[in-house]
Structures are given as C-alpha cells and as structure tokens.
C-alpha cells in the first residue's frame, strides 16, 4: 500500500472532484448536455477509480455491496415516486406541470425532470458499480459454493 504514492494522492484528490462534476452534470442537465445517466456513470467512475487504486476489498468496505442493491431500488422508486406524486396531486402519471403553479414558465417540468433524473443517477451509478463488482469479484477457479459480490 505504500507504493504508487503519486497515483494514490492524485486519486484521493480527484475522486471528490469527479463526484462533484457528476452532480454538476446532473443538475445542469436541463440547460446543457448531461442528465441523470451521464451523471450516474461519472459518479460510478469515481468509485471504480477508488477500487482500481486502493483495491476491491477497500472499495467494498467504503461502498458495501448491500448498499449497491438498495441504491438500485431507491433509484427506481425515486423515478416512479415522482410519477406517484403527480398522481397524488391530481394530474396524470409523470405530468410535471402540476408540481409548480407557475404559468409563465414551465417550472414544474424542471422540478420533475431533476427528481426523475436523480432516480436515474442513483440506479445508473449503482448498477455500474454492481457490474464492476461482479466482474472484479469473479473467482478464477470453480468454487464449491457460489459467492456473492
């Protein structure tokens, strides 16, 4: 763990920036290029960089696989939850206009898209990490019992 000092220090410096950039891509997604999917991939890239530099074991302690599974679900529920919210407010499924009463500017659409894409961000980031864990944890030999990632 003491070797590759430059790599480790640069990675430690970069990972928070990567995550922040991911969030920027997400929240700026309705004005410029970007959105939940891209943001999710960028956030996941931060986690994967951590695993590449510090090892899979350390990464699994920082981001446990059980969280990953819950993250996938939370993302889907966030997306659908937005739809259910619009239902509860008396509009059609995913009709974001109801979320804000402004009539001169479709503010409700902005709010709705940010919420929905937040769900996408969660699911994409966690699925990316899950795929990485699944491939990274593959055992070279055939084991008697299957191991979870």
């Amino acid at each position: 763990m003491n070797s590759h000092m430059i790599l480790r220090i640069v990675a430690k410096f970069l990972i928070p920036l990567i995550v922040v950039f991911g969030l920027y891509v997400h929240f700026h997604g309705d004005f410029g290029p970007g959105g939940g999917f891209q943001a999710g991939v960028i956030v996941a890239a931060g986690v994967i960089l951590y695993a590449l530099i510090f090892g899979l074991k350390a990464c699994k302690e920082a981001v446990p696989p059980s969280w990953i599974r819950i993250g996938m679900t939370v993302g889907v529920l966030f997306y659908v939850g937005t739809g259910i919210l619009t239902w509860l407010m008396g509009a059609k499924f995913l009709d974001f206009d109801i979320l804000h009463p402004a009539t001169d500017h479709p503010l409700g659409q902005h709010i709705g898209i940010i919420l929905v894409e937040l769900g996408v961000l969660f699911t994409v980031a966690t699925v990316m990490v899950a795929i990485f864990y699944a491939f990274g944890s593959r055992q070279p030999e055939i084991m008697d019992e299957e191991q979870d990632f």
Partner: protein
Amino acid sequence: MSGFLTGWLSVEAPVLLVVLPLVMAAICAVMPKDKIAWLLAFITTLICAVLAFDIVLQTRGEQVLSYALGGWEPPFGIEYRIDGLNAPVALLISAIAVICTLYALCSTDAEIEPKKRAPFYAAFLVAFAGLLGMVVTGDAFNVFVFLEVSSIATYVLVGMGASRDRRALNSAYNYLILGSIGATFFVIGVGFLYMETGTLNMADMADKLAVMGDVSRVSQVAFAFIVVGLGLKLAMFPLHLWLPGAYAYSPTAITAFLAATATKAALYLLFRFVFTVFDPSLEFIGATLTWLLAVLGVIGMFVASLQAIFQSDARRVLAFSSVAQVGYMLLGVGMGTALGLSAGYVHLINHGIIKGALFLALGAFWYRYGIVRVSDFKGLGKIMPWTMSAFTIAALALIGVPGTAGFISKFQLLDAAAQNGWWWAVGAIVVTSILAVIYMGRMLEAAWLQPAPEVNGKPVEKREAPLPMLVGMWVLAIAAIVFGVVPSWPVELANGAAQVMLGGGL
C-alpha cells in the same frame, strides 16, 4: 360498454397496469425473505389481472382507451392505447401471471437457491411489466423499450434454471443472442419508419403511411425488418432455434409463463404492425402474408410437429409443439380475411391457456418425481391422477378434440381456409393434428395404459402435486373445456380484434 372499476382506477388503469409491477419488482428485489417477495408478486399480478379484466370490459364495442403519459398529447408524447386487439392479450398475460406466481410458491423451493428467490420474483415482475408494456403502448419506440425490458428479464429467468440443469445457461445465452438480434431488427425497422413518417406514434404513423401508399421503398424495408425482428421473438418457423432450449431448461413456472405469454405478445405486435400500422391491402404486404407468413406457418407446422415426435424429453416435445402451434396462428394471419384473423387470434388465446396448463403439469411431474422424459411417464395416471388428468385435458385440447378450446380454434381455422379456397391448408391442418395425436398420444399412452414402475417389488406410492400447483393447472384445464363448450366469449373478443385489424387503421 364500461368496466366495473370507477373513477380514478378506471381512468389510470392502462398506465397502472405497467407501473405497478415495475415498482413492485424494485421492492421485491430487496426483500429479505422470499415469501414476502412472493406475496408482493402475487398481489401485484392479481391486481393487474383485475385491471386488465376491467380494460377488456371497457374496450368492448370498439371503444378505444387512450392515455397520454405525462400529459403530453399524442402524437408528440407517448400514448398508451388499448382497443379490442390488445386488451384480451393483456388479460391473458396477467391471468397467466397470477397462475404462474401461485405455482411458483412451491416450484421455486425446489428450483431456485434461497437467496436468489427474491430477485427471481423481481425479475419475473419486470418481465411481466415488460410484456404488458409491449401490449398496451401505442408508441413504436416504446414497444422496443418494453420488448427489451421483458426480454432481458426473461434471459435472467431462463438462466436461473441453472441450479436445476446447467444447460439452462447455454439456452439463456442462445436466447440472449437471438433475442437481441430480433430486437435490433425491430428497432432498425422502427428507425426507418421514423425516418419516413417523422413520427413514432402508431396511429399517426398509420395515417402518414396511408398517404404514401405503395411508393415508399423505405417503408417496405422497414416492414421487412420489423417482420423478421418480430419473427425471431415469436418463434416463426426458421427463426425458432432459441425456443426449445429456453422452454426446456428454465424454471418450470417460467416455462409455463413464457410459453403462454411471451410469444403471444410478440405475435400481437405482428398483428398490430401488419394490419393497423401498415395497410394490408398494399401489394407487398399481401404478398408477405400469403407467401411468407402462411407458407412458413405451414412448413413450421409440419417440421416442428415431426421434430416433436422424435424428442425423448417431454419438455422439448411441448416446446416443438409450440413452434407448430405458432404456425397455425401465422396461417390464420396469412389468410388476411376476417375469418382467418379471428381464427388465428382465438388460437392465440386458446393455445396460451392450453400450453400453460401442459407446462404446469409437466413441472409438477418434475417437482414430485424428477420426471422429464417421455419414457418415464409410465403409470403416472395412477401415481398422480389429478395432475395427469389436467395434463390429459390440456393434451386433448392441444390435439383439437371436440368439446375443448383447441377444437374451436382449429375448426374456425379450417373454416377460414376452406372459405379462402386454400384446400392445401385444410389438408395441412388435418395432417398436423394427426401428428399432434402421435406426440401427445405417446405420453398419454404411457401414463394411462402402462403400469407404474416398481421400487423394491412395490409400485411407487401415490403422491399428488401440492395444492397451489394443482389449482393453477386445473383453472387452465377447466378454462380449456369451458372455452370449448361455450366459446362465445373468446370468439367475440377475437371478432372484435379482427374488426380492429381490418377496420382500416387504428
């Protein structure tokens, strides 16, 4: 006519049908106990079946339900559009899903490792949501999305059969490759249509294509891609290679679910595209119907029936029989007449019910005695009389014995072929029905006429399948008889569907 649900539920039913299983799938995936996941899945499928039944009632008498997702009015937004053509398919899918979930309560105990059971139900619900989405949506690209949603979940489900039989992995991979090729062809076709018409809404697309008529070569290419893509998904004869493996080695509840619904949903899409998006009176579509669908259907009926006769694995017998039965439906479609379409559509519903019952019973034989080979059926009529009786009823219906649902649809198909003057098709239906007598008869003969095998000098003791399994297969077996004796309801639905198909556009 209106349904029995009122107010909000009735208006939102089309979208609720898809959203509910998707949400529940996400929740199921993180459930700590598999029985809770099962309960959620069961309640979800039950609610969906009720909603679908209500939708069928609402769409009676050429009523069309249209739901604009997110308040974006069609043709710009995604529209869920349900009419007499897709409502019965949605009901079939959700009813079969209820039965298969009930059945899975017992069958997963034997087939799926404990910690994979909650994800199993989650994947099942995703596949279910995808199939319903494919059926209810009125947007061509949305169809592709749901096609992939259901397919990917299905590959996982087929692969989960691996803890029972390692060949499931191979079959799942085969299905993955061929299914992806099918979906790719389909989306290329949709892309061409979008390029030509500038819209993805099917009703709007139909209007734009009607103006173009026969001159657009791009739409002809699109049609070819869509027919091949859907042909792969619905196991049209030479494109059926994924089917026997996928049906034989997936978990038993999934086999029944796939056999009764997955190919049916793809077949519905073929109906939708050939008859309502495109204009079937155009020359190239008429030629496709006659020379491609009908001819391949008949060849498939013969070849797959013959292959079914020479299989030793009972699951593969039924799988090849499914390919042959798809041939009947394609033959009905290929005629292009109201009677033929209605016959193909009735056969779609009836075959879903019959094949579901057969695969459920077959799964119960495996569950109790590990029986998969036809030669092991000896004496099953005495060992598992109730299960075998349900199997027998469904087998007779598959052959087309009078008084069963299979007879109604085959007779209607014969009638349609005769009125069309297609005497070769009449001959083909009769001959392949005799082939069906041979491949199903082999199992029935072994089960009822041969003595039960002996263990240590004593006959094997009687052990019936558990109750949840029996209930499902008997519901389907009774439906196969009821729809044979009083066929008015499915025939009425099919006539409504044929009317939608030939009524000139959506």
